[in-house]
């Protein structure tokens, strides 16, 4: 039971945090159509998070609700990948013109969607039948997210000198964070043992295939990654998550039990 809860929270927090990040483009998209596209992606992710939090709330019982899980837990309780909480830019210089880089958003959505397209498909066979049903619904959504982000990755990579250089920089910045995908946490190990979760290492070859094919088409270089492996899924986050949660949770915390 506890194994399932920790694993479901990890999946839910991933979806919620990336959903919140994508929502930051609402009203700020580079063009109207992309503004709507990213809002759609965001709403898909938040919808996935809601279903998973509702499932956790049912398993935990008591007075746990999806809102309590989303809005009344602190940074250290969140179990999302560090990759997903990072802002929409790499390291900024003092004279940077914008803190919103679309290439960074696209690369992150691509790396994560490529993983989830494989994971949701595998989770359709989860021993937890509720999770299997959520996986079936989410798979269709994430296939579109992958299509959308991959399309832009290729356009930006195989675009102008400027777009190529910028999206390669985003890739170099974000790729090391994907190491966290493959470092199994105790919660994941327990969920795999219970038949609820999937061992991501069994999906790595397919993920590499999706990523390498897209990067080749985009004329981008896959960065060689080594060194520190982030541990967001164990609750050890970057400083960025606190700011994200402060904005996302402030309204619910100012009006606890409010209805709207």
């Amino acid at each position, binding site marked *: 039971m506890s194994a399932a809860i920790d694993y479901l929270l990890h999946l839910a927090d991933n979806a919620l945090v990336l959903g919140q990040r994508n929502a930051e483009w609402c009203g700020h998209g580079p*063009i*109207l*159509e992309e503004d709507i*596209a990213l809002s759609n992606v965001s709403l898909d992710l938040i919808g996935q998070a809601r279903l998973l939090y509702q499932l956790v709330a049912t398993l935990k019982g008591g007075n746990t609700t999806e809102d309590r899980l989303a809005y009344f837990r602190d940074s250290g309780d969140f179990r999302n990948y560090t990759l997903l909480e990072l802002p929409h830019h790499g390291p900024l210089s003092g004279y940077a013109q914008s803190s919103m880089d679309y290439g960074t958003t696209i690369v992150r959505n691509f790396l994560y969607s490529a993983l989830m397209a494989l994971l949701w498909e595998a989770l359709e066979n989860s021993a937890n039948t509720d999770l299997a049903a959520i996986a079936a619904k989410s798979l269709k959504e994430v296939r*579109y997210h992958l*299509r959308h982000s991959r399309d832009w990755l290729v356009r930006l990579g*195989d*675009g*102008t000198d400027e777009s190529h250089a910028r999206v390669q920089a985003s890739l170099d910045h974000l790729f090391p964070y994907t190491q966290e995908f493959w470092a199994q946490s105790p919660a994941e190990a327990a969920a795999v043992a219970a038949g609820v979760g999937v061992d991501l290492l069994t999906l790595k070859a397919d993920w590499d295939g999706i990523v390498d094919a897209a990067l080749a088409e985009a004329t981008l270089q896959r960065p060689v990654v080594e060194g520190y492996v982030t541990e967001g899924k164990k609750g050890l986050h970057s400083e960025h998550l606190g700011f994200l949660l402060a904005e996302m949770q402030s309204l619910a915390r100012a009006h606890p039990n409010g209805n709207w």
Partner: protein
Amino acid sequence: MTTALKEWPLWEIFVRSKQGLEHKHCGSLHAADAAQALDMARDVYTRRQEGVSIWVVESKAITASNPDEKGELFDPAADKIYRHPTFYDIPEEVGHM
């Protein structure tokens, strides 16, 4: 590397609804090419379950009649009511036409 487009071409979007038999024009959008226009049309025009199929066509591929010629093109049809097949009694077994 391709040259950057400063302006993206305009595309006309046609969507067929679930019950609909034909694609209906629903609007237009800017996109770099047909494939992108299709994806953007999906996000802009079918997010509330409006459709099950999308056509996109570049606006410049459409040849339109000239509004100034409206008189000579369309007004002459106004008094030809005999062109409407409304003067026939349709046998009941035919049903709705």
